[in-house]
């Protein structure tokens, strides 16, 4: 029973930790499916987190915070679009630039505006997204097996958690069941085909990037307004890159993305849980190994040792019609 509880707790923690990864990963899915590489997920999440917490604390509203997080994050996505779509710049370089600008400006503006070492003021509970307790969650807590699953795992998360997980089927539906999705997938494979079909490649890609911005904005808001009660400098701490790794791991598919993010979140949860405790057979696993595992797994995947990850064909290449 203790083991069962421990498992539930680790899974609960897994959910919380994988949400920002999942949102960022789905964000990356939109832009990469549209043929725009995005290593600027990290930066967009960071500005989202900052804008969210800062405006939530200034306007005393979680929803205004979320709105601003999305707005600013979309603005950064559009900068990426301006560089890589309109001016056909190198997408990697543009992503790196965005990460730099995000890292610097959040700390600097935070310090200048709030003077708390780059932190925003601690958010009050109405400035954050609190947990939603599902009906009957407390009542069934005692029921063996299903009780804890319902009351711990399913109920009791913030609204953004549910948004993240609902975004998975929604993204799948958008991508594979709507006109927009068809076009996004097409433009990531062969932009010329989209162009000759009478659809604007640039506008399509911009729209995909807006989706990316919205999702990274929510991811950022989750970090600063749910997981934590305020913004702290560099609070993304590489999550954007892990999300990118998860995206590759998921082979650019939404449902896979969810599983990849849950896996990486699970590794994180496990490393917190197991800190210093020796494992049977393996012995004490260095935390560092656990932390590096997502990256190592991704490299192994990329190397084709466990299946092959084939990115959208037009990814990373600016669409140039007239040489």
């Amino acid at each position, binding site marked *: 029973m203790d083991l069962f509880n421990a498992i539930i707790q680790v899974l609960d*923690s897994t959910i919380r930790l994988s949400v920002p990864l999942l949102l960022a990963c789905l964000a990356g899915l939109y832009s990469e499916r549209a043929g725009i590489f995005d290593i600027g997920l990290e930066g967009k999440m960071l500005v989202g987190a900052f804008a969210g917490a800062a405006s939530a604390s200034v306007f005393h509203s979680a929803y205004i915070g979320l709105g601003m997080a999305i707005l600013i994050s979309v603005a950064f996505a559009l900068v990426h679009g301006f560089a890589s779509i309109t001016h056909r710049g190198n997408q990697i370089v543009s992503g790196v630039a965005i990460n730099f600008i995000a890292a610097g400006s959040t700390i600097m503006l935070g310090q200048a505006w709030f003077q*708390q*070492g780059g932190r925003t003021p*601690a958010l009050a509970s109405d400035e954050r997204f609190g947990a939603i307790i599902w009906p009957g969650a407390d009542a069934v807590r005692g029921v063996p097996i299903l009780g804890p699953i319902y009351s711990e795992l399913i109920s009791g998360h913030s609204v953004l958690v549910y948004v993240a997980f609902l975004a998975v089927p929604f993204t799948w539906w958008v991508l594979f069941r709507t006109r927009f999705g068809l076009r996004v997938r097409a433009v990531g494979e062969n932009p010329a085909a989209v162009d000759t079909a009478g659809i604007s490649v640039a506008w399509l890609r911009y729209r995909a990037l807006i989706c990316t911005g919205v999702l990274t904005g929510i991811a950022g808001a989750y970090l600063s307004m749910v997981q934590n*009660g305020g913004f*702290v400098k560099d*609070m993304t701490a590489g999550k954007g890159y892990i999300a990118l790794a998860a995206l590759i791991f998921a082979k650019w598919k939404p449902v896979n993305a969810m599983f990849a993010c849950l896996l990486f979140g699970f590794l994180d*949860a496990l490393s*917190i849980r197991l800190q*210093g405790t020796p494992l049977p057979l393996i012995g004490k696993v260095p935390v560092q190994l656990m932390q590096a595992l997502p990256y190592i797994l991704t490299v192994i995947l990329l190397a084709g040792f466990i299946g092959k990850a084939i990115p959208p064909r037009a990814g990373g290449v600016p669409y140039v019609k007239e040489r």
Partner: protein
Amino acid sequence: ADIQPALLYDLGGKFDKSFNEASYNGAEKFKAETGIAYVEFEVSNATQREQALRRFAEDGRNPIAMAGFSWADALEKIAVEFPETKFAIIDMVVDKPNVRSVVYKEQEGSYLVGVMAAMASKTKKVGFIGGMDIPLIRRFGCGYVGGAKAAGATDVIQNMTGDTPAAWNDPAKGGEIAKTQIDQGADVVYAAAGGTGVGVLQAAADAGKLGIGVDSNQNGLQPGKVLTSMVKRVDVAVYNTFMDAKNDKFTGGINDLGLKEGGVDYAMDDNNKALVDDAMKAAVEKAKADIIAGTIKVHDYMSDNSCPY
């Protein structure tokens, strides 16, 4: 004397609600009382430490106080280069005649909050969350375990946030660790983790449990949800350094401050009055008296890198 004091913060930043903020408060108090302004600087990388120290020294700043053991390497060099300048470093011993090294018996204060934690706990399980895994923080943990066990706790869950300085500034991870500990049954959680602690206190409050703050009085961070704070009078150290320099009474050497010297303590204020009943109050006061009297000797983890509790 005519002094131009300077204060250097560590990576957590000036308003970390904790250690750096305490030193800032000391300097502010000095400024308010004497009207003497001071200069300050927040570092953001290693190369800057020496640069900042040297720059202040060159500019004739004196005394120069700095918060955090990470300054030690740079100070070793600069203290020799500027023998006339008075330095004070907190949390670390730098053995130079013009350096005052202020260290604290964190184990003693931690013992007290451990006693309170155990008494406030319903499950008799309490938690400790350290910042970066270094002997200094283990010293906090060890004293806490001692106090908690003495007051009847059956289990103390201990976790560290990480191995790198980033561990001082990761509230999200702190919160996650706190949730894990609470899931494991802890209902009072003590955070000795700098900025990370903000997340710990938040998570404890969110879960309807109690947190314990550190360094500064953090009772107000989650009013009614923070049992107490293990205050470390960094503010006093900074204030004294500046005052002594002003009054030409500055001395180098080691200041080892415990309960007796008023260097560490537990914090009471309006925010936690309701949480601390008379029995608890009596027990903690008794422990404090015993420690001061020497009847209780709290083990110092750093003396032998182990914890007997």
